[in-house]
């Protein structure tokens, strides 16, 4: 499954306002709810925070990938948020996060869910790609960048 299949313009925010992990997760969950695939936004927030307690999803290089499977989610939902100021996400490298991917899925789609996580991690390990996405001026531009990356 490609990222562009589950990432829609309405689930991209170029200006995330939250400055702390709980604020940002709340904001990303609200963004995901716009997809109409989230039955219970609060349950999603709880699942995302529970996952963060196991280990932070701030993987370093300015990126975080909060994720959870939860009842009430239909299919897979991917959201992207860009923070201009940076977020304290308790990242593994201790640096602020600017790029947040949030992935939510229904529990029966565990294999596809893991596949998407892995793909995000691979695509965005290239600093040049992260910088391109960070500089994007519209959600459409980001989707086009990801589509181009998928065709490489």
């Amino acid at each position, binding site marked *: 499954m490609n990222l562009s299949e589950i990432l829609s313009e309405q689930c991209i925010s170029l200006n995330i306002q939250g400055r702390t992990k709980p604020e940002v997760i709340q904001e990303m969950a609200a963004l995901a709810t716009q997809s109409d695939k989230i039955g219970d936004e609060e349950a999603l927030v709880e699942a995302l925070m529970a996952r963060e307690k196991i280990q932070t999803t701030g993987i370093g290089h300015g990126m975080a990938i909060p994720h959870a499977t939860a009842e009430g989610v239909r299919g897979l939902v991917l959201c992207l948020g860009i923070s201009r100021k940076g977020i304290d996400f308790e990242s593994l490298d201790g640096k602020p996060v600017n790029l947040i991917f949030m992935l939510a899925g229904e529990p029966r789609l565990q294999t596809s869910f893991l596949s998407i996580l892995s793909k995000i991690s691979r695509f965005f390990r290239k600093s040049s790609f992260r910088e391109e996405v960070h500089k994007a001026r519209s959600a459409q531009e980001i989707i086009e960048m990801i589509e181009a990356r998928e065709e*490489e």
Partner: protein
Amino acid sequence: MLLLVIVLNQEELLDDILAELVELEITNATVIEGVAMERVLAKDVPIFAGLLKSTRGSRAYNKNIFALIPQKEIVQRFLDILQDLDIDLTDPSIGSLFTVPVDFMLSPRKASTS
């Protein structure tokens, strides 16, 4: 159905390789610790003790990854991803890879997700 075998000499690449299998929705892999044949011979069989000198600088230990792959096309996609990550399995210091056809399999039932 194919059995994909990866002999990984550069063990620090293990996480990347497993993550890429997951990306291809291959979640059944098994990882086995390995020791290079030369190392075992050099250490355990006196007549081959001289091999120890020739193995200096090479990797004595490796990881062996076994995974069932449902279609050959997935192997090609895996190779494409390895290339994207600059992992070159034609370099013997990094490792090698091969597939074997599987003509019989007794697999466990999938767990119920309800």
